[in-house]
């Protein structure tokens, strides 16, 4: 399959402390703020039900402030009685973040703000404090792993051929806020340089795993991972090491150059917002081959034939497939879109 145009569901997880988010059915645009919230400090617990002399489940009835609301020191959180009133007030400025089952209030200071932006244009289909999901249509390319925060920008080619490596020298400040398409590989130097030049994101067949460790830390895994802090965004389409892009994947990048795009890191997908008619949807990506030493991934091209059960250099026996680059184990050949 490779590139395809169609409806996509994109889930954006939210950190704790959301203050605004869209309602289900709202229309959103790619790159626009989807939800905003506050970074919260250590909260203060304020005794509620016991001080008010009510049962915890009755605190709702006497509460004056909803969970999630901003308060200033002295704000009345809850109040009972008329002549001999019992009152619970906020001891500090901040937000009412939580009410415990025992009827106590938690007030946390606001230490900063966060914003989650939409990586898809369409309609909100789910919205709660945990996540906002958007459904929309776009040209979509599934990658194998992505790293960093979600990225938004215009697509720009950074290489001249699908087998080229993105040279750090090709990355400069003129490419700021763009998503650069590398070829078979993006070196760690190119990743850090792109970040320094305010490039929005990088897409390539593969990235060196060691370079990813340098950029994202030793905890990085092959599954990728989204981060919220300011880091480069990298989308690996085929694997790690080297991964020459098949023409069926690379040529649409040429056509899409200049169009708005987004990388959704959690699902390792690239969305390009271009007209459906722009590309021939029947352009199938070839199968992929994992090299015998696991060092890289390449597209399966040219004539192939089954060789039956074959003995490989490692003494392993399994069905083989003769390719122009030699016989490969059949399990090491997978369709582009195979789950992995």
């Amino acid at each position, binding site marked *: 399959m490779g590139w395809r145009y169609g409806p996509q569901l994109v889930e954006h997880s939210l950190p704790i402390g959301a203050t605004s988010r869209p309602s289900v059915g709202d229309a959103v645009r790619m790159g626009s703020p989807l939800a905003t919230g506050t970074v919260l400090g250590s909260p203060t617990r304020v005794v509620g039900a016991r001080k008010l002399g009510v049962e915890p489940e009755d605190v709702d009835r006497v509460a004056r402030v909803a969970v999630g609301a901003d308060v200033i020191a002295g704000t009345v959180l809850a109040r009972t009685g008329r002549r001999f009133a019992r009152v619970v007030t906020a001891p500090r400025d901040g937000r009412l973040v939580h009410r415990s089952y025992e009827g106590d209030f938690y007030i946390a200071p606001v230490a900063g703000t966060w914003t989650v932006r939409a990586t898809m244009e369409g309609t909100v289909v789910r919205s709660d404090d945990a996540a906002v999901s958007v459904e929309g249509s776009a040209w979509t390319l599934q990658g194998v792993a992505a790293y960093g925060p979600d990225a938004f920008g215009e697509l720009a080619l950074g290489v001249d051929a699908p087998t080229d490596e993105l040279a750090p020298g090709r990355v400069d400040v003129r490419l700021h806020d763009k998503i650069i398409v590398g070829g078979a590989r993006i070196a760690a130097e190119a990743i850090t340089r792109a970040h320094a030049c305010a490039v929005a994101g990088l897409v390539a067949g593969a990235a060196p795993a*060691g370079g990813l460790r340098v950029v994202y830390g030793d905890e990085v895994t092959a599954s990728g991972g989204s981060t919220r802090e300011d880091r480069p965004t990298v989308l690996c389409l085929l*694997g790690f090491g080297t991964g020459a892009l098949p023409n069926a994947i690379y040529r649409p990048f040429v056509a899409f150059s200049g169009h708005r795009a987004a990388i959704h890191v959690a699902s390792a997908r690239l969305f390009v917002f271009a007209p459906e008619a722009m590309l021939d949807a029947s352009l199938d990506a070839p199968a992929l081959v994992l090299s015998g030493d696991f060092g890289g991934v390449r597209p399966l091209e040219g004539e192939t034939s089954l060789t039956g059960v074959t003995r490989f250099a490692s003494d392993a026996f399994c069905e083989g497939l003769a390719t122009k680059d030699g016989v490969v184990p059949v399990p090491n050949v997978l369709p582009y879109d195979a789950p992995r």
Partner: protein
Amino acid sequence: MTAEPSAPTRYRRTVDVALESRVRRWTIDEREGHLSFDDQPTDDPSDDHTRVGYGRAARVAVFAGPGPELERILRRAVLASGAELVLFLRTTDERGLIERAAALRDARVDLVLALIAERGEADGIVDLIEALRLGCADRAPAPRIVVAGEPHAALRAKAAATGVPVELLPDPRRPEGITAFAHRCRELRRGTDHGLILRDEALEELARLVAARGTDALVVDVSGGSTSLVRADPRGDVVAAHVAPLGSGVAADRTVRRAGLDGVRRWIPWAIDAPTMLERVFNRARWPDAVAAEASALALEIALAHEALSHALVDAADAGIVEPLRDAPLTIVTGAAASFARASHTALVAIDGLASPMPTTLHRDADGALVAIGALAARMRAAGGDPTALVSEELTRRLVPLAFVVPAPLSRRRKLRVNGAEHLDDELGPGAFFSVRQRGPADVQVTGTSIDAHGTAGELGIILDARGRPLLLPPRDAERIPTLVRWFAALDLAVASVA
């Protein structure tokens, strides 16, 4: 007129054993109470169809009071369940409500095990439950909480968990509590696939079947995405550690994250730079059921299997169950570690990974048939039957000794006697590692020591291991590589051609 003898009844079963993404199918014929496994299975499953798989990943957080003993027990419960322990929060945790809630949200917890050891810990546990409510209440599906321990405090914790599904289970400090928690986690991993036999259930049943013959049995399973150690005794009692994700295939990257690059690289008998190795690890992790076509990839898988096994034992040590899971008179290796083309690769992984100081008869399940037998038996037992007699013959046929491994910690040169005869071909001194050609029952004595071991030798004979415990590898490549090559060569490996 005489009645014609009736034809023997024949019953056909199918067992599908899931690998990383593929499935290996076994067709099993039952005639007159005996099973026979077909190595050339048909494409169509029979009506009696057993499926063995890993189930879905279950991410578990634990809430508990401080105390190392409590932590050991809870780790043991999680290891027995096959779930992944993603967060261990103590009531003394110094983080505030927001940080705890954020940690729980980021950990994407499926199940929380909250143990209230004594009534005074209830306040702390309730605070942790408040953090769970703040962090995960809106998640769909919401995480479940399993509360155990002091009954009154458990009820208070249950009341605090408004909006989150709660169950009360027996205290995991008692054996039935561990069993109940493991059962609950397995239900979660099975999801709606009620007929699925989990791989860890099959391994436990296999260990029970083998141990029922009168000897404690240890099953060591290193597969692509999980690593298990299961010990059973003749009474049927099982101690198990199922660690996921940790393995030599799709969890290769997780193994490297735990062991470190150098931890894995040290087992590769030639020089390889860290970035190159990491690329191979990452590609392997994202390519289910990939075949190591080149020797370098095979060496990587062997190294990963070594470390997966070592780190499963580290987890078992943290849970206080390492001794039973290291030493058993009979060891069976299953999974990817048993499927290497050469039996000696399997032996090296088991010997070095377990680093057991006790002699053991080593077996390997090269084609996965023993796991299929275990799965079939687990299904029968779950249905209320006793599978022992039915699978006995096939189990005997498949359970072929590979080697008799005798660790011999030595301080100076000694003499080796095998079945009473002195063995003079190899020098037995500190650091020695060699194989003595022998098949069948073997008595091994080392003069001047208390070693007097009895076991059964197989294809790899008797393996004498005087390298000492813990096994130490020289840090420098110049010494490490020749040492590793010597160990590989000792078990007849063609490493030279690769190097």
